[in-house]
């Protein structure tokens, strides 16, 4: 029987855990921060590099490397921004962390700030997460009251402020440069890269944008022997435990903390308790709505970045959406294309026009007007969005379209017009 490996959820799975500052301290909190304040910032970055942690937001970029790219000696302040705008459909892991163990995440944020020399960190929280915003705000207040934030926490001579900023409900603001624009008070439009945020980010200063879960791993990584232990939780290049948001037609949906060397099949049938009502599995969207879909035959694979990439899909933000044999795949694709057509920021041509056009085509199928030509057209419109846009949203919209057409062509035939 597959079980969870508790690193991030160590406190959350403890029924007696009190999420206040006192409770967090009692369960061993802020030990890592104290240790980090005794280290040089470069050594902290080095330690994070050694742990091999990859960003949990979706792209899987090594966090240590990201921090080491931060422009130095620019005469400008550096910023750390926590991306808590968890908006990829299916993903709900950051909410768990912020809501049930805010101090773990905030300690990680403080460690990250120390590592990159940031004196004012921001948390960009998704606007709809009202309870999380409330929890985070009170947690930050507790930290200020305790002297852990502000000037000279733990006698370190380091100064740090944290601001909780709420978004206004746009999916695109989860893209790091659009997030920074939004944080600056502008329209959330992705920026032209380069320059990358590490050179010119928030207010044109060097900025690192990191996912909540990534930062929440820091207290463990920086604890004694943490980096080595973290590495051992998964195969090479895919280290650590991660939070899997399991949803869809399984018996026990939820957020689970798993190692990276776990088989996807086991996640569905052991952790998730199998398919609801004893039905058969039809397919899985493995990493949030933007990842290419997998059929039931393909799920026998290790659930981590590299193994899924080998299968032609991606782990993304580790949001598994499972659907059973009764699911209408065309309706599912319509729901996804509708989402991207609604959430495209509209600034660049292929995504603005392509997301809407593909939605129109899928809708046409649903009203019974499908044909071979339209299926080909749908595939072509999706392909034309791929790799031609300014940010990754175009790709995100294109990948489900292309994979659905490729893997479930028969489902679309049901909607062909009767000649």
């Amino acid at each position, binding site marked *: 029987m597959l079980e969870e490996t508790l690193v991030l959820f160590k406190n959350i799975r403890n029924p007696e855990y009190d999420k206040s500052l006192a409770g967090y301290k009692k369960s061993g909190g802020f030990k890592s921060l104290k240790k980090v304040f005794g280290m040089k910032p470069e050594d902290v970055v080095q330690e994070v590099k050694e742990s091999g942690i990859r960003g949990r937001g979706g792209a899987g970029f090594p966090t240590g490397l990201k921090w080491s790219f931060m422009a130095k000696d620019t005469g400008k302040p550096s910023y750390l921004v926590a991306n808590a705008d968890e908006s990829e459909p299916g993903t709900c892991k950051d909410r768990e962390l912020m809501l049930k163990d805010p101090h773990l995440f905030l300690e990680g944020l403080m460690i990250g700030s120390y590592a990159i020399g940031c004196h004012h960190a921001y948390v960009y929280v998704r606007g709809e997460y009202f309870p999380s915003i409330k929890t985070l705000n009170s947690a930050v207040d507790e930290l200020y009251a305790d002297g852990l934030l502000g000037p000279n926490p733990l006698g370190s001579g380091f100064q740090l402020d944290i601001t909780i900023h709420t978004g206004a409900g746009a999916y695109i603001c989860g893209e790091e440069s659009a997030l920074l624009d939004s944080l600056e008070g502008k329209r959330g439009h992705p920026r032209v890269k380069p320059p990358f945020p590490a050179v010119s980010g928030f207010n044109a200063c060097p900025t690192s944008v990191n996912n909540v879960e990534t930062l929440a791993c820091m207290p463990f990584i920086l604890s004694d022997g943490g980096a080595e232990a973290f590495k051992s939780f998964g195969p090479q290049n895919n280290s650590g435990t991660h939070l899997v948001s399991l949803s869809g037609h399984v018996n026990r949906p939820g957020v689970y903390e798993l190692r990276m060397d776990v088989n996807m099949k086991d996640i569905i049938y052991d952790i998730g308790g199998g398919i609801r009502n004893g039905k058969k599995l039809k397919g899985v969207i493995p990493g949030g709505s933007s990842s290419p879909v997998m059929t039931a035959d393909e799920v026998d694979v290790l659930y981590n970045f590299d193994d899924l990439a080998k299968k032609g899909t991606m782990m993304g933000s580790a949001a598994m959406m499972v659907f059973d044999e009764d699911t209408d795949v065309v309706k599912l694709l319509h729901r996804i294309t509708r989402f991207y057509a609604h959430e495209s920021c509209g600034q660049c*041509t292929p995504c603005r026009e392509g997301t809407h056009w593909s939605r129109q085509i899928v809708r046409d199928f649903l009203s019974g007007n499908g044909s071979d030509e339209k299926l080909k057209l749908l595939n072509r419109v999706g392909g034309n969005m791929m790799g031609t846009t300014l940010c990754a949203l175009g790709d995100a919209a294109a990948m489900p379209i292309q994979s659905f057409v490729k893997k479930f062509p028969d489902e679309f035939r049901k909607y062909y017009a009767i000649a």
Partner: protein
Amino acid sequence: MPVFQIDGEPVEYEPGEKVLSAALRSGKMIPHYCYHPGMSVVATCRMCLVDVIDMGNGRPAPKLQTACSMDATEGMKVETLNQKVEEGRKLVNEFLLVNHPLDCPICDQSGECTLQDYAFEYGSGKSEMDYSKRVNGWRDIGTFVALERNRCIQCSRCDRFTREITGTNEFGMFNRGHELTVDTYADRPMTNKFQGNMADICPVGAITEKEFRFKRRVWKLKKNHSICTGCSTGCNITIEHDRNEVFRLKPVENQNVNKWWLCDEGRLTYRLMNERKMRIHQPLGRVDGSLAGISWEEAYSAIAERVSELAPEPQAVLALTDTQASNEELFLLQKLLKDVFAADNVFCPLPKWEQSESDFFINTLITSDKTPNRAGALALQIQGDEKNERLTKTIENDLKVVFVLGNPFAADLDVQQKIKQAQLVVHLGVFYNAWSEIADVVLPGQYYSEKVGTYTNKQQRVQSTEIAVQPLRRTRPEWQILAELSQRLGQKNSFENVPQVFTAIAGETAAFSGLNFEKIAGLGIELTKKIKDNGKKIVSVQT
């Protein structure tokens, strides 16, 4: 300068420059919509896709890159014509046409629309889009321009224009996804004085000039380079006309003067080029107390006769001019008085004027001096001062012969009353005005769109105009009238065209020495020795 390659040809670039900017500067065309050299790079239209086969380090770029945002590097090799690029352009064009109405026959931009051009050049020629298109509708957004949002391709040039060029921020993007539109904030009309530029930079027919809409198809327009004479900035323009009627003025890029821009006030001066009611159509002479049409020959001989009868002393001769006149006209007027009458009583009004200073360059285009050639008059040492003190003294003399060029001292009734007493008043002008009323002989001149002339702008840059439209049949350019008059009054000169007059100016005056008419054509040349202008006052403008 360092060099990289486009399609195998070397292209120079400045360090930090982007591929598209360097390509355009060297005359290499890469299709684009959202890029404008005067504004920030957003890389959103995705039309300027190029294939970077070598990034300067021997490796190719993984996918097509937008030339507008790609830094040029030494040894870089870029291809703009291969199949991959063509396919990329084709798909971008297809996407742009998904929601763009195909109403070219009734669209005013048709003929100068980059979407039309590129669709023709790179598009596939057919559409697979068979759903209804997005409809956003027409908006009245300002005094000078109208917005047809259906035609918008969301390149955001207009949005960036009000943010980065005028700083007025009254225009922006609304909604998102395929519903993204441009509009003014809070439904208010725009108030900036440079709205016409938004019509210029709009690559499609979304923003069009109200003045020009539905008047003429653009491919019928003939274009001539000229200088806007609406104020002393001297913006470079093209006069666009058809069948001898001027339809609009468009700015021409001149980095030293107006960059890419032109103010709305300047654009509206095209109306004066078509003005016929107020024009003087033929020479007029005073017969029995009222003005009547006469021939040029009659006019000249009448003037010559009167002048020899009066045989005036130098101090009894006076010439007044405004600073609308070109350098040549001012010079010849001065020369006429000097050669024929040995007089130097040439006066022009030189009131104080204000030059605005601003963080936004475009605000400095508008000055309070609404004449094009104040600096030219100063360079030619035409007399005048803020309060016209010397003039008031001079007109106390017993005046015999007075020449008036244009409409100087239009509001100064005292001067006009005094000059009315003179024995002979000759008015040279384009438009009928108070001076024509009191003149004994009126000689019809030509507007600047009808003749060649050079003007010295506020930066003391000498720039020239071209003949754009046919002049009225019985008018003559003022420089020619002045040259002929001086011949009739006994002087020998052989000025047959403006370049000859200009050569004489360059030979005889210190300020213009060393200048050459051929070199002025195009972007103009600044005077080497700057003239001091005491009437200039700098005011700072906030937007």
